[in-house]
């Protein structure tokens, strides 16, 4: 499937395209100042748009503010303000609720999987972009077919595969699985990117006596860094959030990732609202941080995902 409507990939740049300069103008500041365009709907629409932003954010704000209040406060006044700030709920979730363990597991599994799939996909994409033999075209479509596969439906064979090789209840197994499932998307984005790089750079490197590996590692990889960042950031989110695989493949409480640990904690502490809120925030914080430092990569990944 490749349904890429015009304009995708230039989501935010589309309107920045300078208006064509009429011919015959003196070369001064050659760009005519951009005409201010009237937004559709005027002020009424502005109010509506900001109101919707509030609707999108208030539940998340409530989640954070409630996590800083005591359980008694929450029950007597669910909408109260979080002063004075209390971090007791975090202490409870982090230590008694085992969130410290879950957090470490999630971080290890997610980072491991992202590094693994990004590394193998970068190598593979270079070969797919530069290889001329027909077998590369064939392999490329094999990888891209993986974009369409709902991998969650293969949970049973994965379960028995892992059972056979001792990877049940193993964080390594989970990381390998996520690493593999990220390969199609990563290859899809990276191959496109490698293809846009001019071949002269490599020819020059080869003339200077560099091996293929040196050319790849010293010249090409630094050039595709932005795409690698997009892929890594964009894969981080679904792996961090995934629920079915750890639910089925992990047994031991000490190996749980956050979504499964959270489910267990919620089941046992459903009435300890403030501690549950703290658990929700702990599970979400890395994604918020990631979003703030890498908004551009996430937006790029979302629009790239559209083309699959």
């Amino acid at each position, binding site marked *: 499937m490749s349904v890429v409507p015009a304009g995708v990939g*230039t989501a935010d740049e589309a309107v920045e395209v300078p208006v064509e300069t009429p011919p015959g103008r003196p070369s001064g500041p050659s760009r005519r100042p951009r005409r201010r365009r009237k937004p*559709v709907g005027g002020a009424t629409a502005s109010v509506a748009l900001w109101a919707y932003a509030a609707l999108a954010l208030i539940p998340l704000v409530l989640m954070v503010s409630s996590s800083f209040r005591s359980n008694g406060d929450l029950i007597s006044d669910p909408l109260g303000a979080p002063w004075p700030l209390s971090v007791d709920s975090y202490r409870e979730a982090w230590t008694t609720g085992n969130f410290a363990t879950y957090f470490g597991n999630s971080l290890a599994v997610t980072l491991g999987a992202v590094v693994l799939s990004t590394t193998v996909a970068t190598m593979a994409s270079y070969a797919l972009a530069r290889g001329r033999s027909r077998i590369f075209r064939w392999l490329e479509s094999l990888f891209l077919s993986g974009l369409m596969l709902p991998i969650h439906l293969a949970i049973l064979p994965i379960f028995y595969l892992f059972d056979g090789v001792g990877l049940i209840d193993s964080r390594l197994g989970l990381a390998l*699985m996520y690493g593999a499932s990220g390969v199609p998307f990563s290859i899809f984005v990276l191959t496109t990117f490698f293809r846009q790089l001019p071949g002269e750079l490599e020819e020059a490197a080869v003339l200077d006596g560099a091996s293929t590996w040196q050319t790849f590692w010293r010249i090409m990889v630094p050039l595709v860094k932005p795409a690698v960042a997009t892929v890594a950031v964009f894969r981080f989110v679904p792996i961090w959030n995934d629920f079915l695989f750890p639910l*089925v493949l992990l047994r031991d409480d000490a190996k749980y990732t956050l979504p499964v640990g959270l489910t267990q904690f919620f089941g046992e502490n459903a009435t300890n609202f403030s501690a549950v809120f703290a658990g929700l925030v702990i599970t979400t914080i890395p994604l918020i941080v990631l979003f703030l430092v890498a908004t551009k990569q996430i937006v790029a990944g979302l629009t790239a995902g559209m083309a699959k």
Partner: protein
Amino acid sequence: MSRRTGLLFLTPALALFGVFVLYPMLTAFSYAFYEWQGTSRGGFSGLTNFTALFTRAPFTTDLPRALWHNVAFFLGTMAVQNTVGLTIAFLLHRRDRSRRLLQTLYAMPYLVSPIVIGYLWTLLLSPTFGPVNTLLTKVGLESWALPWLGDPDTALWVVILVSVWQWIGFPVLLYGAALGGVPEELTEAARVDGASHVQAFRRITFPLLVPAIGTVSVLTFIFAMEAFALPYAFGGSTGNPAGATDFISLLFYRTAFDSGATDAIGTSSALATLLFLLIFGGAYAATAVLRRHERRITT
């Protein structure tokens, strides 16, 4: 690059992808056509596992109900994101200063784990302490302060609306990108010729947006058919209350890991195969229709 070096570069990715994605995916289908006794595979059984899904309890009641919920989930999501989402994207697309910030704000819930979203809204909608019902009571809407998630008549719609709330940033972003690609000269020419904003949108902008809407629809379809974590957070693996939030993936999970039936592997694999065919067939058909439309507007 020589063919040999190229294949060497490809080997790690191929091995990983082959072992953990392709092989399980292909065996997943083969499981459905065998007889199973616990974890030991018997002989080839043709379509027996599939017919069991339509003739045996609990499938005869659970499967149609779950399927309907998936379809309602898809249609409900489509209805909201193609009205509210598209309107937001349209209102946003000429706001050069605030657009990026607003798009970012709308996309925030999208990042959060569906499990977290499910538990968050369970707490927010809690009848005993939930801020939502507290607020409704405060503004004089006591009659609206209902146990939204406890009532089988409303629970499914809560799941759908919460999911839309979480996802809306995605269509807004993609429709925004597509709107950015509509040449302004076209709409301006129409305006000069006396068309209203609404007419210009309906006759010019909208037809050019159809490919984007189609893509979003296909992705929404796949997403809706696979829904698992969000309903699990709301209603557990049995789709409480009273199966009102049951979905095919939950039924699959129950069959495979909770049912204890001796042929669980066979029937659950058959269910997975059907779901795969549904997703793949639906996505494929939609894409074919879309391609035809694209050809029509580009030639």
